[in-house]
């Protein structure tokens, strides 16, 4: 890496005019087009991430409304608000949406916004792929909810077990909708993972060695690697096997012809269990950022924290069979997966101790974000403890398919995903919008959410221990489950109120929030070294990273100046590519221009996959359409051509 040149502050008055000209030029080079054209063509990671986050949150609210309807139905015995068929669709779409349309994608969406800024890059590594991924995700989500509202919603549960979801027991198109929703979301998830991986590996700021990567970015690196190896299992199982069993009569899961229903469970959970960690490892990263920022010191035990993330990501692939303890698997297998399930609590526990040590030895400030981080520690730990309980086979067999399981995974997911997500919004909202969220409303939000979560989900443990099965649309008064269910419904209402407070807070703060400035929290990482909201080009100059907390001179003390590197061409969309391990400057990559073709490519695949619900021939015609769209996407236009070897040939 280049060593320090003699100090020469760039805010010298003589440079003011040149700086203004350069910023205007950068804005012309990087800014998206205006209006609907800009909306369809932009490849700015921030613009795409914003709409991604909002879209995932809309799906969160819609799936939450499903939950409200289910809770109203279960609030008293023998309620007749919702019948069994509708109830099946409601819980299936609730689970499918929360997992495939909210928990994982919202984390990726936040990462798409934050990671390029945190590593000091001007954009994400593959910006057109990023736009494509969003459109694929949107089509998948709209497909799922539209199908629900026209009474064709999937109804075989979010993990769509065969034979229930197979052609024999699920006539009609409901399960096909599920399979294709998964296809859309998995494609979106995979391309986002690739973009984030390459952004982290190849576009880090000079000096950001592996030992200086922010813990949040580490969490995304681990998550993205996990996605690369977890998502193919469910994509293959749903698109190439379940959908084909239903569409063209293959026999993967048909026991009569040598197929195997348990194979579905293996493939699904080989994805499904790492999915749990894929959801909450970014949450761990959020908590690290929050705790570091508001404790005013670097996170205690950085190497151990990184090692814990890596170990969690690795061991997560050795747990999937603990979802299948109720199936006939060998005794040795049960013992192995029990041991692994207990083992994985260790690295997460280590991180919790590190956060507590950080808070303990820092100067903690109890902002709303910090309260959400503390709420996470409490709720997630309870979920983790019940997880260790059900890792034990005899206990698992007792509570299998009961509300105890529902309680466990809601503690894990709300604790591990939603609490950190809300905390992250309070931390980074000023960066994204330029305004602070109201702390007063924030305290109501966190208080209600913490109370609602515990009131809604703790009694479910008791209901499960009392034998109440999950996925039943009603129950008899003689069971004695009525009062606890009413309490659960009350808790759900409190959660609704807290989310409503959050939405009001966002809407009010967008217009009337206190202006944030570049770095309202005096935080440590590079995303705070650019205006709020960041300009289209993110950074005027490439920031240089000289420590794990590049904006602090020592714990909690803002650095006087930010070292930068100049030399990227402002006339072109150039980003700096650095080496993988040491982040040494290596080459200047020409970034692609904005284009509508990722949108059209997603649209053509939308026609393909939705059409394939009805006929396999759509794969043939759709592949042709998609190829045409991809050709337009990838064909060089010659605009801002660099090192031209041969110009475009004109018509002959």
């Amino acid at each position, binding site marked *: 890496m*280049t060593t320090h040149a003699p100090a020469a*502050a760039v805010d010298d008055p003589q440079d003011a005019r040149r700086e203004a000209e350069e910023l205007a030029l950068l804005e012309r080079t990087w800014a998206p087009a205006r209006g609907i054209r800009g909306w369809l063509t932009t490849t700015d990671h921030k613009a795409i991430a914003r709409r991604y986050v909002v879209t995932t949150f809309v799906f969160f609210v819609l799936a939450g409304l499903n939950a409200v309807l289910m809770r109203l139905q279960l609030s008293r015995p023998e309620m007749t608000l919702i019948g069994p068929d509708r109830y099946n669709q409601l819980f299936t779409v609730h689970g499918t949406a929360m997992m495939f349309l909210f928990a994982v994608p919202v984390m990726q969406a936040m990462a798409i916004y934050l990671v390029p800024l945190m590593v000091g890059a001007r954009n994400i590594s593959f910006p057109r792929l990023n736009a494509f991924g969003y459109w694929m995700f949107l089509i998948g989500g709209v497909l799922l909810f539209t199908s629900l509202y026209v009474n064709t919603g999937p109804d075989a549960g979010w993990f769509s077990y065969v034979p229930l979801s197979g052609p024999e027991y699920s006539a009609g198109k409901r399960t096909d909708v599920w399979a294709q929703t998964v296809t859309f979301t998995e494609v979106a998830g995979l391309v986002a993972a690739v973009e984030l991986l390459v952004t982290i590996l190849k576009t880090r700021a000079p000096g950001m060695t592996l030992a200086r990567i922010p813990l949040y970015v580490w969490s995304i690196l681990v998550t993205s690697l996990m996605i690369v190896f977890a998502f*193919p299992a469910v994509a293959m199982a749903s698109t190439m096997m379940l959908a084909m069993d239903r569409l063209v009569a293959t026999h993967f899961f048909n026991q009569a*012809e040598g*197929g195997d229903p348990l194979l579905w469970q293996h493939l699904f959970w080989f994805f499904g269990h790492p999915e749990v960690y894929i959801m909450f490892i970014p949450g761990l990263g959020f908590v690290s950022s929050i705790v570091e920022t508001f404790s005013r010191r670097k996170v205690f035990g950085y190497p151990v924290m990184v090692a814990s993330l890596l170990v969690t990501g690795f061991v997560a692939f050795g747990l999937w069979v603990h979802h299948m303890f109720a199936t006939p698997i060998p005794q040795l297998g049960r013992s192995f997966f029990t041991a692994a399930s207990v083992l994985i609590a260790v690295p997460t526990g280590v991180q919790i101790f590190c956060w507590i040590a950080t808070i303990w030895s820092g100067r903690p400030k109890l902002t709303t974000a910090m309260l959400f981080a503390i709420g996470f520690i409490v709720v997630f730990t309870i979920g983790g403890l019940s997880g260790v309980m059900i890792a034990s086979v005899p206990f698992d067999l007792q509570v299998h398919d009961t509300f105890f399981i529902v309680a466990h995974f809601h503690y894990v997911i709300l604790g591990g995903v939603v609490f950190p997500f809300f905390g992250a919004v309070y931390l980074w909202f000023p960066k994204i919008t330029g305004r602070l969220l109201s702390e007063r409303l924030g305290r109501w939000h966190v208080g209600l959410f913490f109370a609602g979560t515990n009131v809604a989900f703790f009694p479910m443990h008791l209901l499960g221990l009392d034998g109440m099965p999950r996925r039943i649309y009603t129950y008899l008064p003689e069971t004695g489950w009525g009062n606890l269910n009413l309490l659960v419904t009350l808790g759900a209402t409190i959660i609704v109120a807290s989310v409503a407070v959050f939405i009001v807070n966002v809407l009010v703060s967008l217009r009337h929030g206190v202006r944030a400035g570049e770095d309202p929290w005096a935080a440590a990482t590079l995303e705070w070294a650019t205006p709020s909201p960041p300009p289209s080009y993110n950074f005027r100059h490439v920031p240089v990273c000289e420590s794990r907390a590049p904006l602090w001179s020592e714990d909690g003390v803002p650095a006087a100046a930010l070292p930068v590197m100049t030399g990227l061409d402002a006339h072109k969309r150039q980003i700096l590519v650095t080496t993988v391990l040491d982040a040494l400057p290596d080459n200047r990559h020409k970034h692609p221009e904005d284009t509508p073709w990722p949108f059209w490519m997603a649209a053509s695949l939308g026609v393909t996959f939705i059409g394939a619900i009805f006929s396999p021939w759509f794969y043939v015609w759709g592949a042709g359409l998609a190829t045409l769209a991809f050709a337009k996407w990838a064909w*060089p236009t010659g605009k801002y051509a660099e090192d031209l070897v*041969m110009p475009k040939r004109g018509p002959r």
Partner: protein
Amino acid sequence: MSRPRLPVGDVGHLPTHAFHNRDMMWWGTVSFIAIEGFTLVLTATVYVYLRKNFSTWPPEGIARPDLVAPSVLVALMLASLPLMRMIDRASRAHDLMRVRHLLTVATVVSLAFNLLRIWELTQSLNVRWDTNAYGSAQWLVLGAHGTLLLMQYVETLGMTLIFWRGPVEKKHFSDASDVAGYWFFIVLSWLPLYLLCFWGPRWF
């Protein structure tokens, strides 16, 4: 209020393209190879998993797959690898004419791969996808890899057209080099799957 910036270096002298692991696109290609390669591993796992449900493989009444066309495909694939080395070397030398002609040959070879795969599916396997789980497994492995063959053809054809029609920038040589790298993956990943699908029914 923003912090003052302190220039500590200049990157204006750095090249605007690079090859292999210095190039960002290379890492993207490697990432997709990881995804696709692991998907192929999973198809093979499904194949082996389903095997246990049958006493004979293939099940009684179904002929074993023919070997001629699949072996020709494997031989052609292996024979094509030196062509890829040549494309890689010509790309690094920024030799426009040579890359252009070699890519044209590669497009024809890739088309032959695809035609042979269609022949394998329809003539060599001796089983349909909907006959039983054995047939489904055979079609799954060949189909999954066949999808990659098709993508390889589209990619190679597209790169060839770019090198004939232009505009060609230096960075496109790096892309052509990546096409060659991806080709290695397609060929090498097929070798164990070829043994599994065409020799497996003879061995287990």
